[in-house]
Every structure is written in C-alpha cells, then in structure tokens.
C-alpha cells in the first residue's frame, strides 16, 4: 500500500516530539502527507531517508479570519527558499522537512515570539475546551435521564450511542486542560528567565483512543441514520438531519467567503453573530413545522398501514367511516430492534389515537420498557405537585384534583392540612399515582402484563412476551369490554 493511516495527536504542547516521530517514520519509508482533525495522520510511501523535520506554529484559521490560498503559498515558498520542503499542515501548524546535513534557517528563530503564538493558540483552545465540558456535562445529564428512565432512551439508538461517547469526551477535555495549563504555567516562568520552551512528553493515549472511539461511533451513527431513512423510511430522521445540515452549510459559507475577506473585523463579527442566531432559529422553526405536520397527519385514500403493523386507528371504533389523518414513524435500536409509532387523527369529530409498538430483544427488556411507560405516566402527575401544595396551603378543596384524581374527600383533605405540608403533598401525589397507574387485576385483557396509565383509562400499556404496546386515545376507555375486544383483534393479541 502506498499510504498509511495513523491515530496520533498534535498540539501546541507536544509538536517538537512529533517532529522526532516523523523523522523515525521517514527512516522506515513513510512521509507525513496530511493531518485531519489533529488526530488522523496520513503518510505516503517514500524511499527510506534520514530527514530533519521542523514543525512551526502558524495560525491558518481563527474565528474571524482564514489565510487565503495565496497567503499560504507565499509562506510555503519563503520556507522553501530558506531550505525546507513542505510536508503537511493543520489549522495551527505547518510541517516541513529537509535532508539531514543540509543547512537551513530555522522556521522559528525567537523563543519569546514562538511562545506568544502558542499562548494565542492555547487560550482559544482552552476556551473551546471549557465550553465543550459544560456542553458535554449537560448532554450527559440529559442522556442519562433518558437512558435510565425515559422510553425514548430505550427505543432510540442515538442516546445510547452518545451516552457511550460523552464520558470519554469529558475526560479527554479534562486531560487536555490540565496539560495545557501546566505547560503555560511552567513556560511563562521559563520565558521570563530567557530559557527555552519545555514541551510535554505526555503520550495522550486516552485522547487518541477517544478519537478512535468517536470515529467508530460516527460510522455506526451514519449507518444507523441511513438504515432508518432508507429502509425504515423514517422521515423524522431525515428531517432531523436537515437543520444541522443547513447550519453546517451556513458556517461553511462563512468560512469560505467571509473569513478570508478583507472585511473589517466589526462586520465579520456581525456576520458570525447572524449565523449563530440563524443556527438557533432554523432548528426551532423546522421542528415546529415538523410537529404541526405530524399533528395534522396525512390524508390519503390508501392507508399507509399494512396488516403487518399492530396498530389501532379511529375508524376501528366508529360505525360510520370518518375522514382520518395518519402517520407512521419507524425506529430501531439495539435494545428494541423493531418499534414504530402510529398516529391516527380526525377533525370531525375531533379524536386522536396513538399506538406505540415495540418488540424488545428479550422479555426482561420488554418488562423494563413497560416500567418506563409507567414512569412516564407519573410525570404529568408530578407536574401537579406545586398546584397541590398551593391548594393545601390555602385550604382550597379543588374537586377535580382531590376528589376525582386522588379520591381524597373534603374531610380527608382537612385532616391532611393539619399535619406536615410536605407529607400532605406527598400523600396526595401518591394517591393520584396509585389511582392513575393500576394493574389490570381483573385480567380483562388476559395478557402477560397490562397497566392502565391514567384515571380515565384512556392510556394503557400492554405486554405479551417481548412485545410491548402503548396506546393513548382521546376518548376510549380501555377497561370497556367492547373496546378490548376490538383492540385485541386489531393488535392480533387473541
């Protein structure tokens, strides 16, 4: 093979060490040719040679500026005229080589100036790392919640993939920050004493591993995305890709046209802020449009649902057929290989039914998924907590809340008020949950597991073996024998 790929790491604190590494590679017949993302090193085949390498910090791109092709060419030709040959470059470094024994002027001739450049690069990198850590911590917390308690975290592959990556990113960033700060602290003193810069010999193995893992997960992510869009025809996934793609294109255009231009700095900053605002607004607008589209559903003469799908629709429960909108979203993940969500909606009369079907990998996972649905059903009850506290405090007996949803009589309400407020709220919430989320003790459905998830029994989760079906209907009672009969037949649960 005429090329070689290596997972390595280049930064302002270790680049002279890498120069030695390139020299070693050259003696084995490999010359560094390209570096991507500071980690992916591509070598090309050469005759083994003894070469000297010089790596110089040279800022090619910042937030607001980017060296043009002619500027890079000029720098390159000047380096070549003092005896060096161009090898590769990154955003912050240029790499040159020459044959051993041939005289050439050093690319960096002043330690103090070199350190100033490194400080400039380092400060920006550190700011980016701090921001990264904050963002990853937030994503980790959000993903953790989803993965541990959420239904989507179970059925969706993306939180599962990101959850694996995030701790590595956080730790990687912390390692970098530690070494950068150590480098600047030590060398600030060195430079003020007129000494040379001391570079790090740390191997950054963890950071290299994180890059490798990220690349692998990115490949899995892309495969999963393509599978979802092409085979599962999950248009939501496709729509989900569009906003980040538009944002990426905007930043790309900014990078190509605005950064290298001779526009005043103020104008460039204005352009960047405009793009950042656009990057925030586009996804919000897009997903609002998408949500409205989903709510309205599709009206087609031919249903999008074949008999293979275990779903129920509005017309299953009407004598006369009504005009119905419907939508189907298919998903897949490691824990739940088959799942889909079906929305059935009508305007006259206004009704909607949502069916979420999942087939888990194992029965234990299916049982866990049922528990997730039960946890999910507790959330709207928890939202009432503040309201309950307020009414208890003020002594207002709201019938719809206490009598209907918690079966707490006025007498019981007054007794609760006399005790500790926190306990009273807890008791009320507990009662609401116990009333809303109940097992099918009468075995009306005759399935492995059945739970009604609200007081009206218009929400239900069913499990038969590895299959879990969640249904939410605006005006059906899933304890009604007629409804059960129709639903079981349609869902093939007889």
């Amino acid at each position, binding site marked *: 093979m005429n090329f070689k790929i290596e997972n390595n790491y280049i930064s302002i604190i270790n680049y002279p060490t890498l120069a030695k590494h390139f020299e070693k590679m050259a003696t084995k017949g490999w010359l560094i040719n390209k570096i991507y993302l500071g980690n992916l090193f591509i070598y090309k085949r050469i005759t083994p040679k003894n070469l000297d390498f010089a790596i*110089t*910090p*040279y*800022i090619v791109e910042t937030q607001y500026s980017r060296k043009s092709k*002619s*500027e890079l*060419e*000029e*720098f390159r*030709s*000047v*380096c070549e*005229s*003092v005896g060096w040959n161009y090898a590769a470059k990154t955003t912050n470094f*240029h790499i040159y080589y020459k044959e051993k024994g041939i005289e050439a*002027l*050093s*690319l*960096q*001739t*002043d330690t*103090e*100036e*070199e350190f*100033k*450049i490194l400080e400039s690069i380092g400060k920006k990198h550190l700011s980016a790392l701090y921001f990264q850590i904050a963002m990853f911590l937030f994503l980790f917390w959000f993903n953790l919640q989803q993965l541990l308690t959420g239904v989507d975290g179970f059925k969706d592959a993306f939180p599962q993939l990101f959850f694996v990556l995030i701790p590595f990113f956080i730790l990687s960033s912390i390692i970098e920050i530690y070494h950068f700060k150590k480098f600047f602290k030590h060398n600030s003193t060195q430079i003020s004493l007129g000494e040379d810069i001391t570079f790090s010999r740390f191997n950054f193995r963890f950071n290299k591993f994180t890059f490798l893992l990220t690349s692998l997960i990115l490949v899995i992510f892309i495969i999963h995305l393509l599978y979802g869009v092409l085979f599962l025809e999950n248009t939501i996934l496709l729509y989900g890709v569009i906003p980040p793609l538009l944002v990426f294109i905007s930043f790309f255009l900014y990078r190509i046209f605005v950064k290298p231009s001779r526009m005043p*700095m*103020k104008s460039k900053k204005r352009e960047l802020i405009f793009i950042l605002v656009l990057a925030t607004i586009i996804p919000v607008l897009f997903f609002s449009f998408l949500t409205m589209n989903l709510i309205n559903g599709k009206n087609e003469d031919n249903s999008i649902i074949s008999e293979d799908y275990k779903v129920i629709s509005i017309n299953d429960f009407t004598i006369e057929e009504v005009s119905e909108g419907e939508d189907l979203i298919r998903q897949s993940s490691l824990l739940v290989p088959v799942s889909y969500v079906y929305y059935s909606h009508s305007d006259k009369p206004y009704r909607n039914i949502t069916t979420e079907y999942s087939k888990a990998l194992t029965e234990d996972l299916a049982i866990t998924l049922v528990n997730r649905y039960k946890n999910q059903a507790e959330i709207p009850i928890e939202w009432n907590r503040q309201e309950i506290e307020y009414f208890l405090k003020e002594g207002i007996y709201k019938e719809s809340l206490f009598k209907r949803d918690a079966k707490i009589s006025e007498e019981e309400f007054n007794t609760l008020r006399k005790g500790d407020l926190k306990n009273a709220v807890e008791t009320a919430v507990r009662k609401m949950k116990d009333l809303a989320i109940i097992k099918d003790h009468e075995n009306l459905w005759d399935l492995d597991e059945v739970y009604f998830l609200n007081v009206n029994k218009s929400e239900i989760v069913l499990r038969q073996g590895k299959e879990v079906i969640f249904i939410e209907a605006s005006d059906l009672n899933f304890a009604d024998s007629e409804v059960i009969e129709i639903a079981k037949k349609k869902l093939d649960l007889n």
Partner: protein
Amino acid sequence: MKKETQKILTQPMFYVLLSLKEVRHGYEIMQYVEWLTKGRVKIGPGTLYSLLSKFEEDGWIKMVSDYNNKKTYKIDPLGEEAIVQEMERLELLLNDAARVKEGNEDEFQNRK
C-alpha cells in the same frame, strides 16, 4: 481596530518594523534584517509571518500590494510611534549603562 502601542518590542519585532520603512515583501524583510545586522539577527519565516499578521491586525503596518503570491507591506504611523518609543527606551538603557561605566557608586552612596 488599531490598538495602543506596546511598551516593549522584542528584537524581531523591532527589526521587522524597522525594515518596513520601505515597502518590502516577506522574504525581502528577512534578507534586509540579516544584512542590516551583519548576520547577527536572523528571522525565520514562522516568526516573521506571525509578526506580520499581528502588526497588520494592530494597524502598525499596512499591506501595499498583493501580486503573484507576494504581499508587500509598509509601516503605518502607529508602527512608527512604536519604534520611536522603543528607541527612546533603548537610549535610556544605554544612558544608564554609560553612567555605570563611568563609575557613579559614590554618587549613589551619597545620594541622601
């Protein structure tokens, strides 16, 4: 945006600004400095081009032309001011050194 003049210039900063009293391109700056200092000071391309970017951003120099992958520069008033201030600072240093060379210990001990 033009920034305030720096107080102390490093050796490469001083010589690069000095060389830009006339319009020059990058390689010519390196050759001029080496000639001016009789080989004592050599400025590498990495050092030079970082300084040129910084000076241009701070308004100390301006690009005069960009032709055939060669940009030429000339010093601006802010850059001239920086050189003048540096020369005054260096003159003060030399004067102080001259006084010490003349021998002024008695003057110091009897200063009160």
